[in-house]
């Protein structure tokens, strides 16, 4: 059905063959970039992951087979600890962002006629385009136990001072809070997009039928908006799995290992300790995770394409 109405989908494959030269010219620059900056480095990475290679030792790479993978699997450098911390970070963070984002998105739903709407939305969406390093640095200032504004407020309420980023009990949650502050606006954005995809007629019908809000939400809004919301959640999952910029200026993974997420540890292993072989194996594990997540993302995307429109 779609093939008949959609001229692009109907374009036969032989088009590519009859314009082989043109297709090649069009694709050549991107392919060249891709091979030089992606394929070759990736193979390099893969090869290196089977070697024992440290840049500081000055020794040539030594082939060790699967030893790096095996050691990580056995939990060298607390690999599983980093992974579970990261998954908790993703799960808790994305859940909070989704709940807050959907709630605030619904609140902002009827704001079309609001005076100064564009400015208000700019202020609301600003956190997600800030430089993460700058944000992290400045939050260190806000969280500071001595002169940070947050502690001043807490002490104003008569509560004891808290060293948010320095104490093992609070550091993780303090970092997570900043992540939520930065990325809840993204889920608001996605919620507004999802709400925009709900047909007006159905909403009016639900209004006339006097459906209670809860039913309207599950039957009408979620029914139409769930794909966009799902894409939003997936994008957040993938992105927060990579969290690094924010943590470096705030805690550098400390205190202890409290805020050491996978990206932070890999960064340290590769560019502070220069354990290149070990880091490569680490990176290959992460590559498998991100390939899995990308597959899910594209699967959901195709689901929407097939059902939507």
């Amino acid at each position, binding site marked *: 059905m779609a093939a008949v109405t959609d001229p692009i989908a109907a374009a036969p494959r032989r088009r590519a063959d009859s314009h082989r030269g043109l297709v090649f010219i069009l694709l050549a620059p991107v392919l060249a970039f891709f091979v030089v900056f992606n394929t070759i480095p990736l193979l390099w990475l893969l090869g290196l992951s089977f070697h024992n290679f440290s840049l500081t030792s000055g020794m040539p790479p030594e082939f060790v087979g699967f030893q790096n993978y095996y050691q990580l699997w056995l939990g060298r450098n607390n690999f599983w600890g980093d992974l579970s911390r990261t998954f908790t970070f993703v799960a808790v963070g994305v859940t909070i962002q989704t709940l807050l984002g959907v709630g605030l998105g619904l609140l902002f739903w009827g704001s079309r006629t*609001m005076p100064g709407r564009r400015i208000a939305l700019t202020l*609301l969406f600003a956190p997600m385009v800030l430089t993460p390093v700058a944000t992290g640095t400045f939050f260190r200032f806000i969280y500071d136990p001595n002169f940070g504004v947050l502690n001043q407020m807490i002490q104003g309420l008569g509560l004891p001072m808290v060293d948010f980023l320095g104490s093992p009990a609070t550091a993780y949650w303090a970092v997570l809070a900043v992540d939520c502050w930065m990325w809840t606006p993204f889920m608001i954005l996605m919620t507004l997009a999802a709400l925009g995809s709900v047909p007006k007629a159905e909403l009016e019908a639900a209004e006339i039928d006097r459906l209670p809000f809860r039913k309207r939400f599950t039957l009408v809004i979620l029914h139409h908006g769930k794909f966009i919301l799902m894409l939003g959640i997936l994008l957040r999952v993938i992105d927060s799995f990579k969290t690094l910029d924010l943590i470096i200026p705030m805690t550098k993974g400390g205190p202890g290992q409290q805020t050491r997420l996978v990206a932070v540890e890999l960064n340290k292993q590769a560019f502070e300790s220069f354990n290149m072989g070990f880091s*490569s194996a680490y990176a290959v594990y992460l590559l498998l995770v991100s390939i899995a997540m990308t597959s899910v993302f594209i699967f959901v995307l195709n689901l929407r394409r097939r059902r939507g429109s």
Partner: protein
Amino acid sequence: MRRSLYHAVLWLVALIWFAPVAWIILSAFKTREDILATPPKLLFTPTLQNFRDLFTTNASFVVQFANSVVLSLVSVVIAVAISFLAAYAFSRFKPKGTDFLMFLLLSVRMLPGPAVILPIYLMYAAFGWKDNHVALVLFYAMFSVPFSVWILKGFLDGVSIRYDETGRVNGGSWFHVIFRVVLPQVKPGLIAAFIFNLIFVWNEFLFNFVIGGVQTQNIPYALAVGTYSDGGLNWTFIATMTTIYILPPILAIYAFQKYLLVGMTFGTVRGEV
């Protein structure tokens, strides 16, 4: 009445969300004593001294700022240009392996930064390309390609192939069809791809830190390694620099709010907020 109350609530939410940013911006106008004052000062006599100091006493700031501008502009222009060509080929001719390549492109963007840059670092170190503007621009361009291809392919799929066919039948060259007939119709996609990659490279620190150096250092790199800590952090300096640095992205999302959604979702979701 209810309506204005509702709007007041929305404004309040937006302002609360913006408060930490406002705190940074306010701090930039404070003296060193005011910034570290306890309790924090909400009312103070604003001073422009910090901004004057920034440009006069710190020569490296200007260089780093210029690096940020040059690196992001040049690399994104290259990336969007070549991505448009590739997206056109993907959308119109669907060569074998299109889906697979689109998948590979995306998975690069889904990988944690250190994993991406590790082999590049070794490659750059081996060839002596580190701390070189051209090498860094090329890498950033490569990193901006996946995003741009995804956005632009989405937009190109939405332009009917009849335009191309009409153009060709009437004797237009491929060059004419691609750049004169099709390109103007995907302008929103080009803008979205451009702005979002620009903001990304502008804010990027890790790649600059790992494969860059003193000459190519941008502001986030300088901030991350604590260039501005003369025994404890120099907060007035950081607040001032941060204020200047975060202003362009915020202005960009004000000016290009229509494209926010397209950009933030790799073009997989379209529409306006």
